[in-house]
């Protein structure tokens, strides 16, 4: 079987300013528009990209506009891989962003902050999520298969 090399679809940087996650999701959506991702899965990928970019801006680069968030979109067979990198190194959660799994009952009773949904949403939106750290460079890798996945059967 012939192996096809991964194909880079787009690479770009964004200033670390609140709101720029909207630019990221629009640009990634444009990069993958011809790959046959159905509308529902495209919306999921957009949400995951927005949340991961927001984390990179706020927690990774601490809202310093001069430190860019780097985003690369690659097609590898039937997989779309979006890598979102910041310079936050090994990140510690912000106060109020609980590292524990969000529990709505506890949030409603005041036992957990109302916040802390970002990583939970990302994990539930894409087929796979991986985080790597290389020195100060912190990258979240989002993978979505163009043909759908068992993941879809759950909801």
């Amino acid at each position, binding site marked *: 079987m012939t192996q096809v090399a991964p194909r880079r679809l787009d690479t770009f940087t964004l200033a670390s300013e*609140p*709101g720029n*996650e*909207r*630019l990221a999701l*629009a640009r990634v959506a444009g990069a993958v528009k011809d790959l046959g991702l159905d509308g*529902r899965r495209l*919306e*999921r990928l957009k*949400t995951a990209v*927005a*949340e991961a970019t*927001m984390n990179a801006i706020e927690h990774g680069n601490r809202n310093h506009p001069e430190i860019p968030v780097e985003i690369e979109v690659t097609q590898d067979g039937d997989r779309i891989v979006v890598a979102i990198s910041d310079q936050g190194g090994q990140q510690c959660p912000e106060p109020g962003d609980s590292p524990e799994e*969000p529990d*709505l009952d506890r*949030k*409603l*009773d*005041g036992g957990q*902050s*109302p*916040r*802390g*949904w*970002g990583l*939970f*949403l990302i994990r*539930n939106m894409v087929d796979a999520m991986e985080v790597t750290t290389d020195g100060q460079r912190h990258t979240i890798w989002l993978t979505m298969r163009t043909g759908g996945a068992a993941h879809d059967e759950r*909801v």
Partner: protein
Amino acid sequence: MTSACEATTRVLPGTAVIELSGEVDGAAATVLTAAYERAVTEGPDTSTVVLDFAAVDYINSTGIALIVSVLARARAERRKVVASGLSPHYREIFDITRLSDFIELFPDLDRAVSQLTPPAA
């Protein structure tokens, strides 16, 4: 390409409707809190608050946190919160986060209002 959140509040018998538009994110906190405040101040007998998302084009995790805060306050005040006009994608997010266990979802505002308010005599 971004649009700030705006809210219009209408008080009906027993029900208050908050029609949201734009983006429900961290910047929407003041707007959403003020809208809820208006809803319960202008309608002290309000037992149900409808959040209508038909004109909302973006909700992020901070926006979800705001909705959780509104829901927590409403529950503490023994009020019910329902939602209408969510796109299929955001309905899915309401399911994943379990918000839909606590917030009844209606396809559109007309159906929510007709079901929640008594028919005119």
